[in-house]
């Protein structure tokens, strides 16, 4: 993954998705995987590739929570579950102490720049809450102590 935009590289990754029917969403996902975000020039490039208006492509990209339109995330991403099953076992309190620890609220990058904190509504680990995803890896049955240890380990 490189965060530097390259139209040439973007065309290369988007090409296979132009062969499948309605490939805009997979193409956006591939762009984000490569560049860590959906950079503004990608909107115009995808509009051209899929014969859509830029407004249509932007409309799709901005609809889905997964796509980052305002810059890439920090090197590490913590997605903390905010949904009911985790709330029932203390997710709200865990969220508050995590925000305090990272110095970041939902959607923000922590002061040190190492972590982006994101809310997620359910990871399907609802019998083992509170749960979270650290850099794409699920972790469950958390409390503040266990979560912070995992964060330290991941950032090391």
């Amino acid at each position: 993954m490189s965060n530097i935009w390259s139209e040439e590289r973007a065309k290369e990754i988007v090409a296979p998705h132009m062969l499948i029917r309605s490939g805009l969403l997979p193409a956006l996902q591939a762009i984000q995987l490569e560049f860590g975000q959906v950079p503004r020039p990608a909107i115009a490039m995808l509009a051209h590739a899929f014969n859509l208006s830029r407004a249509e492509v932007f409309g799709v990209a901005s609809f889905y929570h997964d796509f980052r339109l305002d810059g890439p995330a920090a090197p590490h991403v913590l997605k903390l579950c905010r949904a009911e099953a985790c709330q029932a076992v203390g997710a709200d309190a865990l969220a508050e102490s995590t925000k305090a620890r990272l110095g970041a609220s939902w959607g923000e990058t922590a002061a040190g720049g190492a972590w982006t904190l994101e809310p997620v509504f359910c990871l399907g680990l609802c019998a083992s809450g509170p749960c979270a995803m650290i850099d794409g890896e699920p972790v469950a049955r958390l409390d503040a102590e266990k979560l912070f240890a995992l964060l330290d380990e991941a950032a090391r």
Partner: protein
Amino acid sequence: MSGLRARLSHDAAAMALGGKAVARAMQENGVEVLPVGSRGLFWLEPLLEMETSLGWQAFGPVSEGDLPAIVDAVRRGAPHPLSLGRIEDHPFLRAQTRLTFERCGTIDPVSLDAYASAGGIQGLKRAIDFGPARIVEEIAASGLRGRGGAGFPAAVKWSGAAAATCQEKYVVCNADEGDSGTYADRMLMEGDPFLLIEGMIIAGIAIGAAKGYIYIRSEYPHAITAMRRAVNVACDHGLLGKAVLGSAYAFDIEIRAGAGSYVCGEETALLESLEGRRGQVRAKPPLPVHHGLFGKPTVINNVLTLAAAPTILAKGGAFYHDFGRGRSRGTMPVQLAGDIRFGGLFETAFGPTLETLVSEAGGGTRSGRPIRAVQVGGPLGAYFPPALFDTPFDYEEFTKRGGLLGHGGIVVFNDTVDMAHQARFAMEFCAIESCGKCTPCRIGSVRGMETIDRILKEADNTGRIALLKDLCDVMRAGSLCALGGFVPYPVLSAIEHFPEDFAPRCL
């Protein structure tokens, strides 16, 4: 001494609880690891089953540090404190009726041979012999209803799409399992993916479709990987392709990942998303069976609905219909979640009461505190107090009590829960996830949050509570889909059953 073999759950939940480290430790201790899905006893994950002279013996919850002692105990035939004996004899499993989840946790999810020798593919073989009309008859005889939440009879969708004369039709599997408290789709896709593939092929034959899509939410990366691998294996072995098992039927499956939108679990929003657009709901009619994906006749069903089809075809519609009660036939994989002692997947014929499910099977709360409320059916389901725990798990019985079964998730809350907070969260969630199409949902959810905030601040709030109820009425009647339409369920049930939580508070 070597040759020890063990099954280790590779389910995302087991991995989240340290399964990866256990797998590594097993290799270091010279144990051959057979990756399997989860049995669904999550308080025992990571769950390990070792092959011994007495058969498979289970241990759990296992951490990497336990491994040397377990291996040693197995080699010496000695007892170990984490030993659970034969997992099949565990009371949590013995009390279940596993039809859909019969194999989950027992076989290698990517081995088609293992799937076939454990009873898989039988349904599809019979479906190929039967042909489309008889398949739909069997599904109709089974009484199978949509397991995604709406409970719509599956056979009505299938026969509608089968009757359409269009050449191009689609089977779409809704694997956008966004309801909190549910994880059965995820478990099945990770633990027994061929069952879903088999079910989709059967649906394809029934309606005359040669292409299927599985739309899996992006929050389930393990399930996406597991399904992609299984589809590749199925293609390599002729289960998918131009001639399914050498028959005249063709069927292919494409996996698509979602992008973090809850509303895409609504069937028409999902179709929009599959077509590469914003996941905004469509007005119905036209129904997807007539005008679905790419405007073509489409059967769109939940994972569990499609995964029930192979059993129904293999054993007959009447066999499946024998389970359950009233108009709720067959089995439902109930998912016990939240503050619950024995949290896990409990597949049962419809009919047990909430009390049986939560207190007997689930063992009450994990925290040891008394239960104050359960939310059944996800974020759009009603909150029930213990006074309603005599409600049988049945579509109609839940409707009668002002609730819904949804996708079968039960989230248990203890006595520390603040129900006004939960009602506010329901509105907040709706505001975050609304697709924006219907004003009552888009704006009403925001006004709902504000109104609840005011209710808690004002000394005399009776007028505000009436206003909130009125708003709920507007949302229910004025929203196209279940997001805006059902969010009144948690809000109104919280007000009705827990009015004391809506009393004004000092701030």
